[in-house]
């Protein structure tokens, strides 16, 4: 059947009539919601969805407002990156096994992509997976892994053939974070916190049934994941904005105002408004079925604005800007770029132009894919990975 707003709303109401969240265990309610196809309506039937249009999810959320949710902030990597990839490349068994507990939040996911030697140039990664019968033995070191210490599963890209050019020798796996040989160490950042981890993989054995996609096809599979990551980072609407926070400080501290800061702040206010309008226009284009290339630029603009605004706030605060709220080495569950105090915001914002694609890489992408400018001469495209200069 073709779902529309009325029929989806009807189904949600029917579900609620049969499942009273007040009378049920939270997890049971979420599982039932998944089974009713009301988790993500654009997923296929039987996998938490109805095969409906993605837009109709808003109808479900409206009807189920106030019922227990799956705490999406805690399981963002599973929802945003693992799920679309499993859906696109997983076997039926994998989809059945992983998607329900992923969506309900029973199983947290993390991402094992970046390595100390492979940042912007992810495809050069060195973690090896060697086949032994029905198993793969994985050795290597991953980094910038959030939620690694709470995760049950990871999405993992490893090199299975060093003898071919770097993009072609990769394979994508689901990694069992409880397997022997997986060691997670918190990675302290300049903010004092450890949002991320280093993950050491030593002789980790994964059954071949945890492979996602074909052997050697890992780069293509990873593109699906990364595309979703960049959308997630650039586009997340936050309740408080950096401009809002800095404007509050400006209003509450009239004695700190100077013309220098005022002129800079007005410029950044205009820039923020222009970015907001750009995002509005981008969403309109998406809704009209003409996704524009503007998305690539949003993360770039977002990082710059966060950095300039937070830097201005610290300067504005003068003596208060010399203070910091807390250097305690903690492992926060979630991150809020505009949370905590000015010093934290300033330091954390520095990561905005690095994580999930550096601003340099994003400019390359815009120049080449949007403006059609020629790529630079490449020495690494057709050389076997093992023969690349290091």
């Amino acid at each position, binding site marked *: 059947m073709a779902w529309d707003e009325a029929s989806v709303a009807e189904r949600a109401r029917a579900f609620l009539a049969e499942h009273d969240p007040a009378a049920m265990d939270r997890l049971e309610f979420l599982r039932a919601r998944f089974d009713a196809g009301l988790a993500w309506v654009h997923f296929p039937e039987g996998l938490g969805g109805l095969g409906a249009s993605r837009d109709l999810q808003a109808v479900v959320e409206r009807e189920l407002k106030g019922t227990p949710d799956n705490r999406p902030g805690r399981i963002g990597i599973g929802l945003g990156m693992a799920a679309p990839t499993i859906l696109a490349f997983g076997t039926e068994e994998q989809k059945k096994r992983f998607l329900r507990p992923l969506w309900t939040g029973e199983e947290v996911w993390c991402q094992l992509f970046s390595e100390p030697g492979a940042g912007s140039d992810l495809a050069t990664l060195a973690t090896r997976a060697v086949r032994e019968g029905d198993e793969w033995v994985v050795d290597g070191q991953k980094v910038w892994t959030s939620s690694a210490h709470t995760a049950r599963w990871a999405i993992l890209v490893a090199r299975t053939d060093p003898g071919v050019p770097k993009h072609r020798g990769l394979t994508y796996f689901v990694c069992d974070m409880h397997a022997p040989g997986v060691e997670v160490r918190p990675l302290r950042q300049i903010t004092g916190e450890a949002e991320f981890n280093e993950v050491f993989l030593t002789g980790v054995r994964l059954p071949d049934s945890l492979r996602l996609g074909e052997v050697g096809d890992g780069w293509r599979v990873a593109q699906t994941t990364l595309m979703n990551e960049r959308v997630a980072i650039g586009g997340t609407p936050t309740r408080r904005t950096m401009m809002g926070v800095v*404007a509050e400080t*400006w*209003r509450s501290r*009239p004695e700190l*105002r*100077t*013309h220098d800061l*005022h*002129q800079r*702040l*007005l*410029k950044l*206010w*205009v*820039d923020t*408004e*222009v*970015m907001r*309008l*750009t995002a*509005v*226009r981008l969403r*309109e*284009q998406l809704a*009209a079925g003409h996704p524009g290339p*503007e998305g690539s*630029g949003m993360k*770039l*603009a977002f990082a710059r604005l966060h950095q300039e605004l937070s830097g201005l706030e610290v300067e504005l605060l003068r003596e208060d800007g010399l203070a910091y709220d807390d250097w305690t080495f903690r492992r926060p569950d979630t991150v809020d770029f505009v949370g905590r105090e000015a010093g934290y915001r300033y330091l954390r914002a520095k990561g905005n132009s690095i994580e999930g694609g550096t601003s*340099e890489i*994003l*400019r*390359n992408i*815009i*120049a*080449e894919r*949007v*403006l*059609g*400018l*020629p*790529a*630079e*001469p490449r020495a690494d495209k057709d050389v076997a990975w093992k023969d690349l200069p290091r």
Partner: protein
Amino acid sequence: MTLLYTEVEEELRAAVRDLLTDTCPPSAVLDRAGSAAAGGTPYDAELWKALARDIGVAGLLVPEELGGAGASAREAAVVLEELGRAVAPVPFLSSAVLATQALLVAGGEVAGELLGRLATGEATAALAVSFAASPYAPPAPVASLGEDGTVTGTVTGVIGAEAADVLLVPVRLAQGVGLCAVETSPTVQGSAEEAVRVTTVTSLDLTRPIATVEFASAPARIVARAEGLELPWVWEALARGAGLLASEQLGVAEWCLTTTVAYVKERRQFARPVGSFQAVKHRLADLWLEVVGARAAARNAAALLAEAPAAGPLGDEAAVAVAVAQAHCGAVAVHAAEECVQLHGGIGMTWEHPAHLYLKRAKADQIGLGTPGDHRDALAGPAGLPAPM
């Protein structure tokens, strides 16, 4: 309200662009600029006639009941994008936007009659106020209406006056202020007993020069009058004009970006296209992002102006949209034109390449109808970011 272009708008754009492609290529604009620099006519009368009458852009903002198209700022903005992209030497902004807006706000019989003439393209008008005037500090009238019903005084920095059959001039009255309409028939202009003299000033912008307009007991009709010294028609015309100027700036910036990208793809140095050098790529990526933002901001201003009442004062939301669009687009057009010259290298410094026409237009537009700094300052209140005490 949408920030996208509607189908009607895209059709209008296509019509304007086709005409400009056929009759107003960069080489033609260059030729005219060259002759304008030597004292020739700055505006292309043939092109303007085709635009105004055949496509009907002159009457876009004029209501249907007065013989116009009854379209909105959205359509006028699309026309301005195309005119900016071509740095077309036509008096659209001066007549069909600034003068028309002043008449729409003024209202009344004389305004209605004039709007009817403008809509058909039969007449062209100009608002005799300096293009450098900011909507946040519109100048007091420098001309006055005598008891004999004639206007006397000199206004500087006026755009589109050379092409105008009617000049709308703010005047001091015995009591209060007014807006007068002065006809500048060819027999009067330039004659020995000239009542209106329009002198083109050697201008930075070769495709839209400024002029000095001298009224010497010029017969005039009163379009509107007001108590005090405020000139509501002028303010509203300048503010709405500023909002629409952002679309012209967008067009200028787009041409510069597109032309530069095309050039660096072709131009080779060190056996590579210049556009394959990463520093060049990154600068163009940054510029592209600015232009993308300029489109969103200009569209937003046009959309909110389209929703604003034609006659009444602009609401806060529209006023903010205008200021944001101008603060951003004014700077983007200059930046795009400067990068265009720089990345063309030596050829960008030559008169024979059209880049300089865009640079000069962009720089003049940065001053026109309020500088980016003026528009930012105007946002301090609405943004809740008060200035230091």
